[in-house]
């Protein structure tokens, strides 16, 4: 059917948005609203008027497809060119690739979970405005998962450790950290999910991942990661405004919502902050050419930007998230504590670790004048010395994990970086262990949820992480070898030190071929 516009006048942005969102909504007549939207009441959030919702970006589906298609065209043109020209040989050095192995295994699958979560939240909300915004975000998130997997598959042709990320996500010990974070969010109600992911993660924390780290990828010659990273983050700008809008909307609807939202903000800022430890380590240790330290990025994107945000939200009765004093103190420490952990457990991971060079140690000393020389540099130098003597240190005792964030107990007491922080709670006759006051309090608020956590170390000790048919009672049984087999990690190829690895040798040989006539 050919439709002709008769008025000759183009609709303004606001009018068009109204027609294409609320104008397409209808009131149910033969089913009750609470049957159609069954998840609206149980979290205790009270919404009186969904029409008060305002989407700040007045993007309609027709414009959405147009601009997303344009982004995809740009992205795939760059990815194709990068692959066609063996762009992988232009990265600063092959150690860098280990940062993006972590990205693929630890971060891209979260994009897929976000896709599922926003599809679910969008379905659950009775208001047309948030429903449309969640629909777009759900589509964005599956696009991010796919573009990241496509872009990184190029590395899988040449390097080890990229071969089985979805299998590993369900099993490998450190991947249970990001995985359980998102599983916690998608199993919450739709309002908590929106505060958890839409607000706390998207608004307060994702800049730290996608802005300085991706800018760092560009700095290190990785055009593939730069292009998928910035293409994803261009959607994030919309997600962040959705996150901020949902918080304002919920808080304005009813004063009873304030304490519920406050507890979610406290919980999810802490949960997200713990997950980002991984990104701190990637920035400080895994980018051969460094752009800014984790601490500097934290100050710009969390302290300054988050500070402005919480000042703005104060008029609703919202205060800044709990445990900020500890978070502020720990910015000098967590990236170093995380790297030390992965270095020690380098035999049980799917990427390589290494001893930083003198130049890198000096950079860290300069960026962390109050902590690095005193607490961390001597240990790294000692390990490097040991490695030189052929005694590269691999820790073979499995660490205790925190019941909530699932990170090994590697963090230190608030204000004392020489003392490991432990907390415990007795619940139903069982003892549960935590890395911090934050994780302990989160458990105490929802013990029935968190007592069920699938903790990789505990599962290994219970014999649940060996391939089918394994007999642990045979003589000379090597549990680590069997666990790696279960993970699909190839011993000696995907793991251990970067020095002497196949990746290191191949990269050097191929770069030599690319720059000489040999």
């Amino acid at each position, binding site marked *: 059917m050919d439709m002709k516009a008769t008025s000759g006048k183009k609709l*303004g*942005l*606001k009018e068009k948005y109204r027609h294409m969102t609320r104008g397409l909504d209808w009131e149910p007549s033969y089913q009750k609203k609470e049957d159609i939207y069954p998840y609206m009441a149980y979290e205790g959030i009270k919404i009186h008027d969904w029409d008060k919702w305002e989407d*700040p*970006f*007045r*993007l309609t589906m027709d*414009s959405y497809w147009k*601009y997303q298609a*344009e*982004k995809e065209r*740009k992205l795939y043109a760059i990815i194709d060119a990068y692959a066609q020209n063996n762009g992988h040989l232009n990265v600063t050095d092959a150690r860098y690739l280990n940062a993006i192995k972590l990205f693929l295994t630890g971060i891209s699958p979260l994009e897929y979970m976000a896709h599922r979560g926003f599809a679910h939240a969008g379905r659950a909300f009775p208001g047309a405005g948030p429903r449309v915004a969640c629909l777009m975000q759900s589509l964005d998130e599956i696009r991010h998962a796919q573009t990241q997997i496509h872009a990184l598959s190029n590395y899988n042709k040449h390097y080890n450790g990229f071969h089985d990320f979805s299998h590993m996500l369900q099993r490998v010990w450190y991947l249970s950290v990001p995985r359980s974070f998102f599983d916690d969010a998608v199993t919450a109600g739709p309002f908590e999910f929106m505060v958890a992911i839409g607000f706390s993660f998207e608004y307060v924390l994702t*800049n730290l991942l*996608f*802005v300085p780290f*991706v*800018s*760092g990828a*560009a*700095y290190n010659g990785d055009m593939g990661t*730069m292009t998928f990273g*910035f293409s994803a*983050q*261009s959607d*994030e*700008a*919309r997600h*962040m*405004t959705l996150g*901020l809008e949902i918080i304002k909307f919920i808080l304005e609807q009813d004063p009873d919502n304030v304490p519920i939202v406050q507890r979610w903000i406290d919980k999810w800022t802490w949960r997200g902050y713990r997950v980002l430890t991984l990104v701190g380590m990637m920035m400080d240790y895994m980018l051969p050419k460094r*752009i800014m330290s984790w601490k500097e990025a934290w100050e710009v994107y969390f302290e*300054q*930007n988050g*500070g*402005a*945000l919480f*000042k*703005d939200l*104060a*008029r609703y009765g919202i205060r800044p998230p709990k445990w900020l004093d500890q978070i502020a103190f720990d910015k000098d420490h967590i990236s170093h504590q995380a790297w030390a952990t992965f270095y020690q457990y380098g035999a049980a991971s799917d990427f390589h670790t290494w001893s930083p060079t003198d130049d890198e140690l000096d950079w860290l000393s300069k960026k962390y004048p109050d902590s690095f020389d005193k607490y961390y540099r001597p240990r790294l130098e000692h390990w490097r010395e040991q490695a030189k003597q052929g005694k590269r240190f691999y820790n073979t005792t499995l660490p205790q994990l925190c019941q909530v964030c699932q990170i090994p107990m590697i963090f230190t007491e608030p204000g004392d970086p020489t003392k490991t922080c432990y907390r415990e709670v007795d619940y139903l006759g069982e003892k549960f262990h935590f890395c911090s006051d934050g994780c302990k309090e989160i458990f105490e608020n929802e013990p029935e949820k968190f007592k069920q956590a699938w903790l990789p170390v505990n599962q290994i000790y219970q014999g649940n992480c060996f391939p089918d048919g394994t007999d642990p009672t045979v003589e000379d049984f090597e549990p680590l070898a069997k666990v790696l087999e279960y993970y699909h990690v190839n011993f000696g190829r995907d793991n251990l030190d970067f020095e002497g690895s196949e990746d290191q040798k191949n990269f050097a040989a191929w770069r030599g071929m690319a720059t000489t006539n040999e």
Partner: protein
Amino acid sequence: MSTVFIALQANEDTRPIIEAITADNPHAVVNQQPAMVKIDAEHSLVVRRQTIEELIGRDFDLQELQINLITLSGHVDETDDELTLHWNA
């Protein structure tokens, strides 16, 4: 006073946009970083369609910003003519 910001990919499409933002927001500070440009401004920042159109010599839809936008902060208000970022406190 709180700071808002907008970050754009550093490419040919965004050069005139950054120029327009700088012209319309004399208080803004432009930070060049690898592959991106981050513009910080105290309290508020405005992106004007007309200023961009004058620089590029063609019609410009402010939603085209979506293509090269990396991130932003502050409350967003978008009309046909302006995209404004601001904090209320």
